[in-house]
């Protein structure tokens, strides 16, 4: 192992990590409610990381650590604390954070800034300043923390004292720019902290490279060995004895964990029972979808055939013809039918006639089958939930699916209405009174005016009035009600007024949100335009009448902030762009996997958006509900069946589950796989526990 320079830190500089109680108290006073039990674990983890990196308490100095906590346990919190200690300890050290995208980068920035005030109180020896946090391509100077995207790694030097690589499992593929950059510049960083929830879902070579990056070469052999047995589990002979494989799985998992324990810290969500109450319990949410009828299956079969025939030269190549989108909606299907009408002109006989005949039959059948049954079933369930005052998030794998679902929900969900509401002018005055003045450089009357205007928009007004049940429509009563009533649920953590203030504060934190408020572009604020309770973050559909339903992916901060408040659209439809690194849990406990990605990691990550410390489920003492609606009789149903089995073993296998190719799955094989995992479970769970912070 190459020699590494000392960080020269003293354990006294992170003494505050031994006193989580004070930190929680200080934070709570400043309006950021922390849960003591979780903070205690996070502080212990941060302390352990610093000890290993610095070589304190008789430990060897480590080049790096891999933090592999389950999704939702606050890896960002831990890493932010470590970053502050190293950057602010006065040793002229700089920290660089690589985040997978802008959304997550902004989240990092918020997280880092949220610690400034409490740290000033609890760790006065640290030089913690807000302007130490830098976004984007700026020169890294001593004492600063720079947050950049993964792509930065390929372009610039990575010289720093601590490099934090977030969502490291994104570094997939031997030759991705990010992966190469890490490979070539590993010596530029003095210390490395890698964050991923899914260590063994990373390709073996990548994982080994990361281990090398953190000085964990010694674990290569054991990691390779465990990876091989995982491979055996997923692509090996399913006729081999399950006992034998279970034994190997447990033995090699144990060996891998032993070898990794110096470099890896990991907490599984099931390892921390005392925190369950602050995270929330999970439950299945059954949404029954009527099975596919013959005409619907015939449509899919005809489209599959037609696309095959229309594939250029009649070679019947294996390009995708049975698109997964055909199984979850009709809009993409219809669009493809229109494309085929153009393509048919280029075909020769007899394929031309055959395709024309197919398209005719498809058109006729489409008239016979009505609304997509999955759309219908899901929208009925969503309606029932929002009628109860809940928010619902729906994940789709494709933009086309998200667009169709959004349009359908928008057209079927009832508008929010309220009776005997105060006039908008009264609302305006009431909010003006309730909304606290922002301090410092953020103060801007224009921004505030836009925000109040948004709060007075039809949807938000009606929504708010329904929560308040104010005795009369006077301004005084309104103000009082806003300040005393809790939104959506009696157990909500904040009053309506507090929620509005927190939201305003959060919007001001975001550059893009401030820009929206500044230019008074009310239509860019979800819920400002009309009374639709549905919003989607994905590519907008071509239909101009639906335009207002979509906010493009590039600027989702505003949407995330608003969805994390009681206000605004009750239903959010997103693609997997929002499946990682962000919080959506503050006012939502209902998640529908409308369209699964083949990757179990994605599913786990999606679920992790709601299952987090201080979740809405936890504060209202209700379960987090995950729905996997499936259209029986189609591949959609098959995918759901396998996915549920895979994610059950996700944590146990340290993320070592593989993507699903529905076509190559055999149910018998999946049962065999489950039995292997079941046999190895106890031993593996015990081994996994060894990786906890010490």
């Amino acid at each position, binding site marked *: 192992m190459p020699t590494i320079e000392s960080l020269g830190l003293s354990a006294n500089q992170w003494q505050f990590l031994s006193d989580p109680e004070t930190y929680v108290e200080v934070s709570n006073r400043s309006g950021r409610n922390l849960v003591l039990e979780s903070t205690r674990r996070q502080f212990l983890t941060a302390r352990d990381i610093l000890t290993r990196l610095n070589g304190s308490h008789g430990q060897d100095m480590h080049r790096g650590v891999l933090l592999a906590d389950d999704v939702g346990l606050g890896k960002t919190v831990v890493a932010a604390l470590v970053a502050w200690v190293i950057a602010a300890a006065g040793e002229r050290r700089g920290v660089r954070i690589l985040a997978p995208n802008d959304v997550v980068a902004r989240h990092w920035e918020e997280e880092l800034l949220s610690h400034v005030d409490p740290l000033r109180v609890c760790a006065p020896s640290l030089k913690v300043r807000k302007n130490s946090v830098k976004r984007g391509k700026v020169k890294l100077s001593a004492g600063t923390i720079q947050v950049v995207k993964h792509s930065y790694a390929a372009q610039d030097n990575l010289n720093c004292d601590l490099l934090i690589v977030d969502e490291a499992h994104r570094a997939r593929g031997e030759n991705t720019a990010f992966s190469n950059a890490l490979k070539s510049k590993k010596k530029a960083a003095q210390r490395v902290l890698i964050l991923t929830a899914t260590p063994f879902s990373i390709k073996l070579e990548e994982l080994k490279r990361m281990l090398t990056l953190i000085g964990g070469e010694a674990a290569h052999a054991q990691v390779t060995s465990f990876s091989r047995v995982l491979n055996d589990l997923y692509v090996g002979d399913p006729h081999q004895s399950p006992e034998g494989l279970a034994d190997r799985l447990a033995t090699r998992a144990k060996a891998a964990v032993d070898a990794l324990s110096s470099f890896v810290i990991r907490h599984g969500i099931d390892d921390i029972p005392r925190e369950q109450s602050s995270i929330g319990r999970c439950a299945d949410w059954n949404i029954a979808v009527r*099975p*596919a009828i*013959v005409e619907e*299956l*015939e449509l*899919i*079969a*005809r489209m*599959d*055939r037609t696309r*095959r025939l229309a594939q250029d030269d*009649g070679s*019947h190549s*294996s*390009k*995708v*013809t*049975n698109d997964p989108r055909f199984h979850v909606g009709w809009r993409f299907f219809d669009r493809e039918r229109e494309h085929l009408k153009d393509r048919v002109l280029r075909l020769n*006989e*007899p394929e031309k*006639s*055959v395709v024309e*005949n197919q398209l005719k*039959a498809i058109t006729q059948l489409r008239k016979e089958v009505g609304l997509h049954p999955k759309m219908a079933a899901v929208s009925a369930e969503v309606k029932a939930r929002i009628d109860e005052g809940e928010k619902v998030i729906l994940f789709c794998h494709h933009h086309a699916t998200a667009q169709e679902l959004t349009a359908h929900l928008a057209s079927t969900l009832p508008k929010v209405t309220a009776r005997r509401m105060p006039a908008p002018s009264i609302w305006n005055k009431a909010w003006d009174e309730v909304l606290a003045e922002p301090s410092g450089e953020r103060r801007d009357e224009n921004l505030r005016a836009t925000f109040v205007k948004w709060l007075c928009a039809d949807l938000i007004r009606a929504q708010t009035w329904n929560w308040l049940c104010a005795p009369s429509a006077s301004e005084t009563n309104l103000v009082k009600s806003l300040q005393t009533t809790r939104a959506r649920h009696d157990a909500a953590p904040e009053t309506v007024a507090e929620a509005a203030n927190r939201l305003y504060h959060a919007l001001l934190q975001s550059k893009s949100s401030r820009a929206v408020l500044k230019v008074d572009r009310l239509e860019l604020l979800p819920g400002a335009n009309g009374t639709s309770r549905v919003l989607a973050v994905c590519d907008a559909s071509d239909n101009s009448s639906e335009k207002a339903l979509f906010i493009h992916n590039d600027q989702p901060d505003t949407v995330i902030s608003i969805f994390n408040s009681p206000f605004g659209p009750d239903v959010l439809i997103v693609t997997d762009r929002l499946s990682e690194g962000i919080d959506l849990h503050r006012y939502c406990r209902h998640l529908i996997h409308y369209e699964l990605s083949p990757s179990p990691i994605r599913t786990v990550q999606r679920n992790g958006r709601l299952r987090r410390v201080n979740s809405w489920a936890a504060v209202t003492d209700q379960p987090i509900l995950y729905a996997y609606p499936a259209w*029986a*009789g*189609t*591949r959609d*149903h*098959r*995918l759901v*069946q*396998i996915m549920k089995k895979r994610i059950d073993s996700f944590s146990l296998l340290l993320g070592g589950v593989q993507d699903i*190719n*529905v*076509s*190559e*799955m*055999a*149910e*018998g094989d*999946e049962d065999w796989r489950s039995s292997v995992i079941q046999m190895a479970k106890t031993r593996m769970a015990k081994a996994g526990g060894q990786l906890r912070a010490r």
Partner: protein
Amino acid sequence: VSSVGFGWEELLRTDAPSGSSLKAALLTTYDRADERILVEHLLPLLLKLSREPGGEGAERQYFLLELDRRLKQLHDKLIVVSSTAREEPPDPDDGESGSYGWIWRSIRYLTVGSRRKAVQHAKLWLLHWGAAEKDGSEYLELVVSSANLTRSAFKGQLQAAWRACIQLHPQRSALRLARWGVLPKFLQELAVSAGDDDRLAPFVELLARADCSDGVTFVASVPGIHSGQVLRRTPWGVAALRTIMPRGRGGVRVSILSPYIGSWSTDALNRWCDAFEGSPSRLELVWIDKNHPWARAGRWLLPKSTLDTLMGGEATLRHLRYESNHSEKPGAFHEEQRWADDRWCHAKIYALTRGTSRRLLVTSANFSAAAWGSESSGGELIIENFELGVCLDQAAWPLDLEVFENEKDAAIVSHMLKPSAALITWARASWDGKNVGVECRCEAGDKLKGTIHGGGIQKPVSNWTVGADDRFRSTRVPWADAEPPPSSVQLIYGHDTVNVPVFDERPFWEREGSVPPEVDENVVQTMRDQLLFEQYGGTVVAELHGEQPIGEGEESSDNDPEMDGNSHEDYQPGDDLEELFEADDGGRADSYAVPALVLARRHLRVVDNWAVQARRAANIGNAQFEQKVLRRDCELLIEAFQRQAVRDAEKGSARAIGAKLAAEELTQRLKHFPET
């Protein structure tokens, strides 16, 4: 004598490229062709059947139906010519053999002798192979041997054979045809003798499209009295030996291997030798001693008088010993031959050498006047037999044997037993759906009796129309019922009995429905559909009454999921879809793929494979036959898929989608397929 292996099935192979399919065949034999050797060995090879004849239960029925289907496709394209329709006595070793007489409904069975007495002794196979997938070329495969189409010829005898597989040109050429020497004329004469003058013309046309190999000359005999003028134009029999004798100075030596030696007088022998500038003193005959098993069994026959003639002419007798004490020692014919091998040599080989020039003749002709001809008092050559051989330049004589120490030890017979003269010398029968037409040539008189057999039904044959020479007889007997169809006509004239197969002359739509006797008529349609799908790369196994589905227990090669990114060549017989569809939730029990869509892709793959073949047939020449078959198959596939849709729907209406789409698409495609 073979350049390949030595097992009994050596002759049962083909050199045609894999993927090519038989379009026509001519097979000649002396003995009546044995249906069992055809059905159980030769036809599965030539027709490239996917099923095995040895199976039991459903597998057996599938085999018979597949054979029946292929024979119907090749209706009247397979021709067998033999010497007589007389049946051999049953072989006691055969055990219980199947009844395969139904194959003659589709295979044209001819016998020689329609105009005058004739013996068909040649053993020629001409196989026309359709274009293989790869190169688009057709082939003509020729086999000239000593093997009759009987079980004993394959299993009990050693044979000599020559085989060539020649790529066919798209167009005929007279020059090319001329290079085949006497072979085209031989075929014409054979057809005339069989009473069907133009029947073999398509094979002559194939010769006109094939280049005869260098160093190969055909030597043939045809029955008749041939003048010197005729022989100069077409040198039959012994006259042909002059055409193949090595040129040069000095006399020509001849070595002979023949199991049957005719009666030769000194004069006849001298004349025979003169034909190729040889002499009895330069003649070597391979022979066996009295103790040789082949002598004791009466397999090899040499009249004492001929031995005397040979010895008188100072011919040499080479001793083919039987090493009874060395049963594991290699025999004289092949390195793999062992003396314990109880097959007897039926090969007929002649070697002509002059100096270093050598010619080797592999032929059907025994060393007899019947085969080579004898000179009449008028100087004409009288030949009794059709014989055919092929002469190869510079090929080596295969035997190295010592001279007999004492000719008295040679196995001889005092005189040759002549078989009793046939009273019915030629016959044929056919059925047009209304009448059975019977024609025969027999001795004059009114002793001819006949009975038509079909299933359990017999009908007497009467009202013969007698030809001018009082020998040719013909009649038509009403038979309008196809259940059962007529299968054979038994003709009896005195002590002579022949069983003539009835060829089915009905139009194809009437023929198609007939079922081989062993097959269960209740499941025949399902099985036929299955075979048809299988032929185009698909299968849908249906359970038969009390039978396991075909392929049960075999590993399913399910690379054909409903999803994408998968190969297409995997639709194998053996995928037991019935079992796969047992899951209650409408899905396959062992797969997450959607059954209705899996099934649709599988059925549509059959359509794809048909379409690929249709495209290929459109792009190659001489494909009228293939196009005709493809058109008919398409019609049958449409009907089969319509039936399959009903069967599939029994386990859920969604499962019928695939078959429905397949039938629909084929109907579309058929509209664009050229009429033939």
